[in-house]
């Protein structure tokens, strides 16, 4: 097979000083499925963004079909036949599938008017050529994640992609959807397409890829034939040591109810229910996991409990005190902590210093203030303590947060939220997109806190995570509880997937355990 593309000596430094790629060599052969592996923050997305013309490297060359090329914008890359499906989809939800697919290359009638019928025909054509089934007239808004991904893939193919880059495509999929995607990818490969597949899930890689390149801390750790390398070797190359991402956890010893949710509902602006009559309870010393495809009301549930949104209906009790209408501050005063889903939007002030970010929940406590003046020394001392305790890698408390890596930023959030003696922790995607070391650290800390008697509500799109950490587990689908498992260790992944996709739903009486009945 011949080399269709190669990158040589790629170095990329972001404006905040993070060296995302360092002298990386990378090449793919025509017609292969090539994996890029590496833990979060290793520089996989960056390398692919460079290949897709979205980022410019400081050093290095790219050769495509034997010629040196300069890819200074995505449109140039697309012209060469490189297509990319991003980690976050870039679709317009209110438009139809066909309209989304032809965005930017719209067929015109009389050179002026948008030719919708032609667009539909174009979509039908590619979808037939590549055997990817899709309804061109469906509105994107109503589609499941798996379908949206399919549109993104088709979008690239419609633009003539010969190399298809998929950035962590399975991160958002249920097990069933993943299986379907893999069949499609193998099918595309058989049609002659070259596929670059980013992932850090070992099992998947073994299943469908021919070769793999491993990145660690921005450097390439080499290229391997997938069949010649063991999962263990891969993981050692990725992380630099053996990782066992299983948490050591004893059975929970639940105590009294800390959080009680009664018939809670939330209606969006269009009066559409996003959370529907949800009821459950969470006890001291217990981790209750919420699994579900993102966007099924988990975010709104968390925001209602933490006071960022007001419930449309129903009641929330924290330690027997009604908290439905309390402010964020008052809910925090009930010893509630919150790890927000999006750390850059809610979790930190990125332009603030680490110290400033570590004290945002306690800056006004009497111990830190003498009269009108803040006890800056004590606050700094506390910050330094937290930086040590949570091993936040930084140049000191005055460093700006946006100079840190994702894992360390999350540690700033976690350090603040875990260090206020919480009785209730709402952890929304606590380890999303961060490195293995930080992930291990945060998961162990959660279990430790549980053992000390904290009640923890864990929302995660990462199935492994909810299944590993949770004592009990519920599934949310379209704002409702679709399933409840008293004992999370007895849940089967495939079965969980069925509930997440709405293919199955438990009877109300089967879920009585959620209320302690």
């Amino acid at each position, binding site marked *: 097979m011949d080399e269709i593309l190669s990158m040589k000596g790629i170095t990329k430094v972001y*404006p905040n000083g993070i060296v995302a790629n360092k002298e990386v060599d990378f090449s793919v052969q025509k017609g292969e499925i090539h994996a890029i592996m590496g833990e979060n923050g290793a520089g996989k997305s960056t390398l692919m963004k460079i290949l897709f013309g979205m980022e410019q490297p400081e050093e290095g060359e790219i050769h495509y079909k034997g010629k040196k090329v300069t890819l200074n914008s995505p449109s140039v890359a697309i012209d060469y036949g490189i297509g990319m499906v991003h980690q976050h989809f870039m679709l317009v939800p209110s438009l139809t599938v066909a309209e989304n697919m032809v965005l930017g290359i719209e067929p015109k009638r009389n050179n002026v008017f948008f030719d919708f019928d032609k667009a539909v025909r174009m979509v039908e054509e590619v979808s037939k050529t590549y055997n990817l089934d899709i309804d061109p007239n469906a509105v994107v808004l109503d589609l499941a994640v798996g379908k949206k991904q399919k549109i993104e893939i088709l979008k690239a193919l419609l633009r003539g992609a010969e190399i298809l880059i998929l950035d962590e495509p399975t991160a958002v999929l249920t097990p069933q959807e993943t299986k379907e995607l893999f069949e499609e990818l193998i099918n595309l490969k058989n049609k002659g397409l070259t596929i670059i597949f980013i992932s850090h899930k070992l099992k998947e890689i073994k299943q469908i890829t021919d070769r793999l390149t491993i990145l660690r801390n*921005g450097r390439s750790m080499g290229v391997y034939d997938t069949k010649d390398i063991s999962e263990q070797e891969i993981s050692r190359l990725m992380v630099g040591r053996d990782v066992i991402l299983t948490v050591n956890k004893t059975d929970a010893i639940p105590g009294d109810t800390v959080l009680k949710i009664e018939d809670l509902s939330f209606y969006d602006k269009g009066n559409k229910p996003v959370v529907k009559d949800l009821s459950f309870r969470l006890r001291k010393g217990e981790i209750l996991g919420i699994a579900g495809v993102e966007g099924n009301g988990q975010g709104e549930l968390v925001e209602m409990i933490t006071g960022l949104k007001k419930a449309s209906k129903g009641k929330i009790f924290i330690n027997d005190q009604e908290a439905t209408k309390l402010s964020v501050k008052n809910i925090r005063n009930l010893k509630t902590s919150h790890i927000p889903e999006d750390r850059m939007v809610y979790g930190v002030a990125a332009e603030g210093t680490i110290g400033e970010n570590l004290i945002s929940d306690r800056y006004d406590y009497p111990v830190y203030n003498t009269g009108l003046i803040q006890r800056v020394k004590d606050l700094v001392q506390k910050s330094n303590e937290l930086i040590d305790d949570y091993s936040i890698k930084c140049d000191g408390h005055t460093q700006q947060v946006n100079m840190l890596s994702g894992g360390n930023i999350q540690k700033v959030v976690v350090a603040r939220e875990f260090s206020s003696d919480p009785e209730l922790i709402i952890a929304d995607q606590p380890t999303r997109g961060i490195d293995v070391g930080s992930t291990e650290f945060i998961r162990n800390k959660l279990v430790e806190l549980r053992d000390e008697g904290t009640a923890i509500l864990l929302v995660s799109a990462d199935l492994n995570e909810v299944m590993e950490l949770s004592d009990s587990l519920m599934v949310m689908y379209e704002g409702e509880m679709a399933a409840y498992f008293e004992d999370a260790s007895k849940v089967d992944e495939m079965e969980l997937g069925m509930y997440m996709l709405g293919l199955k739903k438990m009877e109300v009486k089967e879920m009585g355990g959620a209320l302690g009945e």
Partner: protein
Amino acid sequence: MNKKILFEAMRTLVAIGVALLLAFIIIFTVSEDPGYALQRFLLGPLSSLRNFGNVLEMAIPLVFTGLAISVMFTAKQFNLGAEGGFFIGAVGATALALSFELPPIIMPIVAILCGGIAGGLGNAIPALLKSKLDASELVSSLMMNYILFWLGIFIINNYFRDAQAGAMASHRLPEQVKLIRVLEGTRVHFGIFIALLMVILVYLFLYRSRWGYALRMVGLNIRFAEYSGINTKSVVLYSQIIGGIIAGMGGAVELLGMYTRFTWFQLPGYGWDGIIVAIMARNNPLLIPVFAFFLGYLRIGADLMSRVTDVPSEVVAIIQGIMIMLVTAERLLAGWRHRMIVKEKMQNQPIDEGGVQNG
């Protein structure tokens, strides 16, 4: 952190340099005797104690309005009401001075506080509209400037006007309310110390008090502040009211230090200049007096130049405009900074373990 300060300082210096260079070019093209013009412009303010005094006199109100704007901008509240606040503050001080008789020392203090309250009340309106109705403080504070102006004129005209005075003016201010002169041979008044005191107070407020911390966090990321439990609505409110108070005090100080009667029948413009000062100082209260002095120096220099040469003092307006544009141009020198970062990162790379240490 230090590198950031260095970089910002570089950018400010480049902006000033480029702006001055342009000013020189203009002077050289329009003037018959550019050497003399330039000398008056650059050294004129230092040529006599009186001229230097003029610079300081001008810097005093700029410190107040600069501080007012920097407090509001730090909270990302784009309230431009320092102009109206300054004006109504002077009206408030006049009203007090002409209505009550108080002992010396006490009287100016009360008058300045009265000016502050007037300014604070004026800004409370856009602040309330923003926090209750989410109305843009930019628009409402601009409108408020005119409302306060006409309200002030109305108050002076109807209650405090001296019919005997030739032009429209208030009655004479009593002696014991006026601020004493502090520099022989100039009109520099005690207000300079009040201004410096305010610099320290504002610094302590922003960086050493819990309210200042909350205000800064709202400015950095309001959603983060909200999530942390900070009452963001109250920050929106008090940041603007405090801005108004500082501007109002500035108006009062200016009136009591420099005037014998209230004689302003147009907006004095210090509120706008305060925006320039705050932007140049990057909202850092400790830098406000530096740039207030700098702007005052440019103004007086240009004024001195235009008096004795053929170069109009409007040159300063051009300089100001260019400086502001360059200082706020985020991408200016960004390439230089990026190269600096890349170079540094490339040098101290641990090669072993394939380890580029991120963070």
